[in-house]
């Protein structure tokens, strides 16, 4: 499906504030409510709008440590990626899993209550994951900026 400037205008407003009511969204995007809901329905049906997900503030639940683990896998085993990913999914404190083309193969985003808890997860759950050749942790100090919106 092709999207036009009107779709783009709606998406720009919608992604900037997904909590907007249908009426407010239409007004901000400069279209009638009927056009707005028709466009959104069309983009949802085409899979361009995949849905909306709640954002959980883990800090409020006592998870104060965030670590990005950059992982290199032992790729001599053809099952390395699949087995590593399947095992990583079983670790509850892993909130994101990415795979890459580049110097590192995968990244796990981990949350922990404190450094002691992190140390425990790292030893008991991460170092025991299969096919890891190397791990480099990046400890998160602060999120300076976050904007999920695409520059449409």
């Amino acid at each position: 499906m092709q999207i036009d400037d009107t779709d783009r205008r709606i998406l720009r407003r919608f992604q900037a504030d997904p909590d907007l009511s249908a009426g407010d969204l239409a007004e901000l995007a400069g279209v009638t409510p009927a056009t707005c809901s028709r466009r959104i329905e069309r983009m949802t049906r085409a899979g361009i709008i995949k849905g909306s997900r709640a954002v959980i503030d883990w800090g409020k639940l006592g998870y104060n440590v965030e670590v990005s683990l950059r992982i290199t896998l032992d790729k001599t085993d053809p099952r390395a990626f699949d087995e590593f990913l399947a095992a990583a999914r079983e670790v509850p404190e892993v909130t994101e899993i990415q795979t890459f083309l580049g110097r590192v193969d995968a990244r796990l985003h981990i949350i922990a209550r404190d450094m002691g808890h992190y140390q425990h997860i790292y030893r008991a759950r991460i170092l025991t994951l299969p096919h890891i050749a190397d791990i480099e942790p990046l400890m998160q100090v602060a999120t300076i900026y976050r904007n999920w919106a695409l520059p449409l």
Partner: protein
Amino acid sequence: MSARLDDTDRAFLRALGEDATLSAGALGRQFGLSQPAAWRRLKRLRDEGILAGRRLELDREALGFGVTVFLGVKLATKGRVSLEDFERAVTAIPEVQVVQHVLGLYDYRLRIVARDLADFERLLRRRIMTLPGVGDIEANVLLSEERRPGPL
């Protein structure tokens, strides 16, 4: 300080993590609560800041953003001034979605979107490598990504 959650709270957060548009009525039906009881729980989760808004999930590729890259950036010169200069300049680039200050091999972790690899190269050369204080840069092109529910 961290808020206490019971099993129903966790079930709510899990469900909303998949679909943030679920109403109190729908959540109540799914987990065996009356609509008002479900609404009170939702309100508490919002008031305590645990539910911190929602994020619209769009099909990046369908909208013309075929490439997502994670960058590790090391600053060549450090000091308060250079950090602030760098942060101000990097957050002004529309394609930059996440800027995190980290400890480890790099000083910053960036997530950026681009139309394709040629567009990414242009961004890298013209916007990223020219940022104030930038030293070493490592780029990893995203192949796959999954978000996990987290420790709920």
